[in-house]
């Protein structure tokens, strides 16, 4: 679709007019402009991925090592995958719980809020930033606020006790089986507004004539949403999924700030694992291998999506 000069035509006519240097430069310009970015990505993303893969096969501990150690790191991880006591196992189980809940709840809540906000609400201009602002806060801030809020001795529980509801009990953040859910709560609080904005944008884009048609067809508000509108938000669901999935996979700071990985090691996520083993535990090879496995997991989700997304569009 772009204009690209071809000199084949000229050659065919035999007219002696070669494109000058300037013209050649003009033709190459788009690629020249794109090249720096692409090279940066190539080096600093794909190059580093290769590096990580390389390290994962070495015997690197606290420092980079060039000694080949075969698949030892992977064997370890593989073994740990099935040992419920191991941090890696915990991390994998947790990312499952976390990702599913985080993505599902964010989407459900985001969609719900967007639908509510789309009902020609008067104070929309005020409400929207209220739902959106948590996205503006860093994980450290979110962690500080929620850590405090959820602490049974300081936060919500204490407050409700103050107000007379003494039987109220909420100590998930101190409970090894529940702590990962508090990470979900804080994460959802932070990201759902952003998802809401995406859905709101999607809702605003729906043809109003379609809704009129549905009304005439006798669909009530609920049916309109369920049968007509929500199915049409499919692309938004996908984008939201991608955004949330990448945030879920990268969630690291939130865990550190909120639970510090605990109680015990019960709220670790794979990124915590990777970070810990690479930087703290002098097991760089294992850390790298876990990074490679994470990348493979991400690829399994993202690459098909990218493929279909980019292939469909002409």
């Amino acid at each position, binding site marked *: 679709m772009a204009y690209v000069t071809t000199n084949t035509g000229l050659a065919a006519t035999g007219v002696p007019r070669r494109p000058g240097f300037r013209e050649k430069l003009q033709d190459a310009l788009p690629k020249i402009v*794109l090249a720096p970015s692409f090279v*940066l*990505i190539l080096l600093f993303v794909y190059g580093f991925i290769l590096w*990580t893969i390389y390290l994962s096969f070495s015997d690197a501990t606290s420092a980079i090592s060039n000694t080949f150690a075969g698949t030892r790191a992977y064997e370890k991880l593989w073994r740990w995958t099935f040992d419920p006591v191991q941090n890696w196992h915990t991390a994998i189980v947790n990312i499952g719980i976390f990702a599913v809940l985080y993505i599902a709840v964010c989407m459900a809540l985001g969609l719900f809020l967007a639908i509510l906000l789309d009902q020609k*609400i008067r104070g929309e201009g005020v409400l929207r930033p209220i739902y959106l602002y948590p996205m503006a806060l860093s994980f450290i801030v979110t962690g500080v606020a929620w850590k405090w809020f959820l602490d049974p001795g300081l936060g919500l529980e204490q407050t409700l006790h103050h107000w007379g509801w003494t039987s109220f009990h909420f100590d998930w953040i101190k409970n090894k089986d529940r702590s990962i859910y508090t990470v979900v709560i804080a994460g959802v609080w932070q990201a759902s507004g952003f998802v809401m904005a995406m859905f709101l944008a999607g809702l*605003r884009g729906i043809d109003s004539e379609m809704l009129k048609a549905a009304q005439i067809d006798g669909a009530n508000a609920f049916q309109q949403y369920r049968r007509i509108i929500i199915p049409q938000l499919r692309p*938004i669901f996908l984008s939201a999924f991608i955004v949330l999935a990448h945030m879920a996979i990268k969630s690291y700071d939130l865990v550190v700030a909120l639970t510090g990985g605990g109680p015990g090691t019960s709220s670790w996520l794979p990124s915590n694992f990777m970070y810990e083993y690479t930087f703290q535990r002098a097991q760089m090879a294992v850390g790298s291998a876990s990074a490679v496995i994470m990348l493979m997991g991400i690829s399994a989700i993202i690459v098909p999506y990218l493929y279909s997304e980019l292939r469909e569009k002409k």
Partner: protein
Amino acid sequence: MSNAASSSSQGAYTTLNRIVIYGLLAIFAVVYLMPLFVMLVTSFKTMDEIQGGNMLALPTNPTVAPWLKAWGGACTDGVCNGGIAGYFWNSIKMVVPAVLISTLLGALNGYVLTKWRFPGHKLVFGMMLFACFIPFQSVLLPMSTLLRYVNFGGQWLEANLGWNFGLPSPTVHLVFVHVVYGLGFTTLFFRNYYEAFPNELVRAAMVDGASFFQIFRRILLPNSLPIFVVTVIYQFTNIWNDFLFASAFSGGGDNSPMTLALNNVVNTTTGVIEYNVNMAAAMIAAIPTLFVYIVAGRYFVRGLMAGAVKG
């Protein structure tokens, strides 16, 4: 006149509906605001009140001391590095160029990838997009190793030319890192936006004799405001809030961005955790991004509508 009844009952139904909708929205607004509210009231309380009192209660005798302390000096015994005040400017110095460069590059990439396609453009874009998903922890070491050579380069330049071009500067490093790892997102945003941008405008400009850059500057850029807002907000928040890169590449100390200072305040473990100071510091660190979201929030949704969500 059966219709009068039916219409009025419909009216009642809608009124009830409205009440429910507004009610739900208000409840959620309260829930979303709660942590902010708690942070805000706490930051104005004295430590005594915090320990004795109710988290949600308004401060009985509000004090700005925690804010001053967070801003000016957050530790006791007079041995502090001062509050987070000094680091605010560090963050700005890092964020502004990083946001601008990554956004501009993203815009250029989006422009090339939609309006000047070449064989393989999809692959290039796909690769840039995939780059958004790598866990950043895994690039810390290779990146710092690389920066070592950048430093060497800077030293060499300084020795030979008398100027190091800012190469060994941690701020420059941070800007560079944020630009590299923000490129995927900015490119994605702009590509999706420009995908919907009429080709005919580009062609018209081409016929009008505008060059590659003239088309970009005169035709695309002036019409990219919505997506600029989205991208800038997104990048600004991410970079401002980043802790990982900041801790790894800032070299610590005087060059640290805000988040690092905030972390030092929040993780400072004197006998009593000064929640009020922590909250005040957290608020101060969050003010720029909050401000951006609140002021530009409306354009954010509009910008998303304008193409960013198509993903």
